[in-house]
C-alpha cells in the first residue's frame, strides 16, 4: 500500500507548519521523516493519519483519495510518542481494543491478540496494567495495539523519543526486524539522524515546513542536497569564502568549483566533515590550513581533535584515526596542518 502526499499545506494560526509538501512512500517500505523540532514532520505524519486536516493538497493511499476520510475509517496503525495506552485496560484489552470495536468474534480476538503478544514477547504480561510496565514494554504494547487490526499503513510519532538510550537502541533494531517480517508500509518521525539512517529504507529530511531532501540513507549522507542537510547531519566544519572562475577560495583553502566558471565572484560556503580532514605535521601545498591543537579527546573509536585555525578565527573539529594519532604523537599546543580530503561547496543563495 503506497502513500502519496501531494502539495499539502497546513497553518496553525500564523505559523505555517507545512508549505506545498509532496512525499511518496512506496508500498511495503519503511520511511523516516527526519528534521529539527518545528520542521513540520509530526504535522505531516498526523495529516497522513487523518488526525489533522490539510488546508490544501491531497493524500492518497494507493489510488484512493483519503484527504477527507475520517481517521477511524482509514485503517491506519498509529503509535504515539507517549504510548497513549488505555490505563484502565490490561495489556490484553489494549491490544484487543481495535478488534472489539470492529466486532471481531471473541475467539478470533483471542487468537489475534495472542499472536501479537507473542510477537512483542509480552505474552506473560497479558493481564498487567500499563502502569506496571517499563517504558520499552509500553511502547511494544502500543505497537502491538496499532498492528492488531491489520492496518494498511503503520505510522509512528517519535516512537522511541521517551526512552533511555540503551532501550532505544534495542527497540529500533527490533522495529527493523519486525518490519522485515510483516512488510507493512511504515512511516516514522524522528529528530535523531542515527535512528533514521539505521532503521529506514528511505529518509525524508524536513525543515521549516519544506522537504529538503529525500533519498536512501546512503544517498543523503554521500550527496547532501544543500547546506541545511549538510549542517543537519552534523560533525561538519564550515568555511565562508567566494567562488570565481571555477575555483572556491576561502583564505588559504582553495578547491575546484567548475559549476561557476564566471568572472564575477559570488559568496559561497564550503563544508568539510570532521572525518574528511587529515592532520599533517608539514604543510602540503595550498589546500592545507595551519592550526594549533587546542584539545584532544582520546576516548572513543576515533580521537577527536579541536584545532584553532588562526586564518579563519575558527575552531575545526577533526576526527583522527587512532593509529594515525599514535603515529603522529599529537599533543595539545602542537602546530599542525589540516588538509581536507573532500569539500562540498554551495553558493550562498541557501542561507542556513
Amino acid at each position, binding site marked *: 500500500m503506497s502513500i502519496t502526499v501531494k502539495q499539502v499545506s497546513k497553518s496553525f494560526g500564523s505559523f505555517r507548519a507545512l508549505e506545498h509538501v509532496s512525499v511518496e512512500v512506496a508500498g511495503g517500505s519503511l520511511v523516516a521523516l527526519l528534521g529539527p523540532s518545528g520542521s513540520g514532520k509530526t504535522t505531516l505524519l498526523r495529516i497522513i493519519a*487523518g*488526525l*489533522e*486536516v490539510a*488546508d*490544501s493538497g491531497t493524500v492518497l493511499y494507493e489510488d484512493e483519495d483519503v*484527504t*477527507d*476520510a*475520517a*481517521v*477511524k475509517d482509514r485503517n491506519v496503525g498509529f503509535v504515539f510518542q507517549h504510548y497513549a495506552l488505555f490505563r484502565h485496560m490490561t495489556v490484553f484489552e489494549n491490544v484487543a481494543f481495535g478488534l472489539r470495536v470492529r466486532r471481531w468474534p471473541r475467539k478470533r480476538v483471542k487468537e489475534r491478540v495472542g499472536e501479537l503478544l507473542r510477537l512483542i514477547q509480552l505474552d506473560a504480561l497479558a493481564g498487567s496494567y500499563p502502569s506496571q510496565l517499563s517504558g520499552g514494554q509500553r511502547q511494544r504494547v502500543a505497537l502491538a495495539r496499532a498492528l492488531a487490526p491489520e492496518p494498511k499503513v503503520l505510522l509512528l510519532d517519535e516512537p522511541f523519543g521517551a526512552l533511555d538510550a540503551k532501550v532505544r537502541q534495542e527497540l529500533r533494531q527490533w522495529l527493523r526486524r519486525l518490519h522485515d517480517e510483516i512488510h507493512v508500509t511504515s512511516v516514522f518521525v524522528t529528530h535523531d539522524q542515527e535512528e533514521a539512517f539505521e532503521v529506514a529504507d528511505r529518509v525524508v529530511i524536513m525543515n521549516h515546513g519544506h522537504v529538503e531532501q529525500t533519498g536512501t540513507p546512503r544517498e543523503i549522507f554521500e550527496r547532501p542536497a544543500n547546506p541545511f542537510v549538510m549542517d543537519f547531519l552534523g560533525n561538519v566544519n564550515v568555511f565562508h569564502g567566494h567562488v570565481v572562475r571555477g575555483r572556491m577560495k576561502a583564505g588559504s583553502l582553495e578547491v575546484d568549483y567548475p559549476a561557476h566558471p564566471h568572472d564575477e565572484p559570488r559568496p559561497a560556503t564550503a563544508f568539510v566533515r570532521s572525518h574528511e580532514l587529515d592532520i599533517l605535521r608539514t604543510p602540503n601545498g595550498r589546500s592545507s590550513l595551519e592550526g594549533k591543537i587546542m584539545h584532544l579527546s582520546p576516548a572513543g573509536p576515533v580521537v577527536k581533535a579541536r584545532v584553532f585555525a588562526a586564518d579563519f578565527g575558527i575552531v575545526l573539529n577533526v576526527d583522527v584515526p587512532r593509529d594515525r594519532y599514535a603515529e603522529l604523537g599529537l599533543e595539545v599546543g602542537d602546530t599542525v596542518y589540516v588538509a581536507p580530503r573532500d569539500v562540498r561547496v554551495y553558493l550562498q543563495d541557501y542561507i542556513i
Partner: protein
Amino acid sequence: MSTPEKTNPRSDPRWVRVALIAAALGVIGVLIVIPLVDVFVEAFGRGLGAYWQTLTGDADTQAAIRLTLTVAPIALALNLIFGIAAAWAISRFRFPGRTLLTALIDLPFSVSPVVAGLIFVLIFGLQGYLGPWLRAHDWRIIFATPGLVLATTFVTFPFIARELIPLMEAIGADEEIAAASLGASGWQLFRRVTLPNIKWGLVYGIILCNARAMGEFGAVYVVSGHITGRTDTMPLRVEKLFQEYNTPGAFAVASLLASLALVTLAVKTALEWKTRRDLAEAARLRSEGDAA
C-alpha cells in the same frame, strides 16, 4: 476545503454540542439560577422601602445580624491560627502519624452538623459532663454565645488548614531554609517569606470559612436554645421568621446571606483567575529561562 469537525477525532458533532450545552445550562438554571433570583425577588417583591423596613424595623433581626457578626469572626480567627499552625507542622516536617493527622483534620466534614451541635450539648449542657460544674460557677456555654462559637468553629474547622497544606507543600521549604540560614528569626521568617507566598491561598481559605461560619445552621440550631434576640444567628432568624409565617422577613434576611454567598463566589473566582494567571506567568518565565 473540508470542515475540521468532520475529521478531528476529539470534537463532537455540532448537534451533540448544542444539545449538551443546552442541557447543562438547563440544569444550572433550574437548580441554581432560579432559586438565587427567587431569593431576591421575594425579598424585594414589595419594594425597597418595605425591604429596608423589614430589616431595620425588627430589633430581633438586628440582634441576629449582630450575633452572626460576633460569632463568625471569632470562629474564623481561631481556625486561622490553627490552620497556619497545622499547615506549618504538616507541610514543613515529617513525623510519625502525619498522614493520620491530615486525615483527622477533615473529620468534621463528615460529621452531620446536628451531631456537631449535639456533642457540645453532651459536654457543656445541663446534663452534660461539665454541666454541674459550669452551673456551680454560673457559667453558660450552651444556649449562649460561647456554645455558638464552639459549634461554628467545629464545622468550619478544616477549611483554612486544608487550603494551606497542599499550597505550602507545593511551594516547598527552600525559601524558608534560605531565610533561616541567613539568620531570620521565626517571626521574621513567617512574616517576610512564608506569608507573602501563601497570602492568596490564605484569603481563599478565609472567605470559604467565613461563608460557612456565617451560614451554619444545623450545629448552631442544636446549641442555641432559640432565645429570640439573644441566641438567634441570621440563619436561625430566617427559620424562625419562616415558622412565624413572616415570609417577607425570612426572605429579607435570606437575601443578606445570599449576597454574602455571591460576594464569596466573586472573590473566589477572582482569586482562581489570579492563581491561573500567576501559574501561566511562572511557566512562561521558566520556558524563557530554558530558551536562554
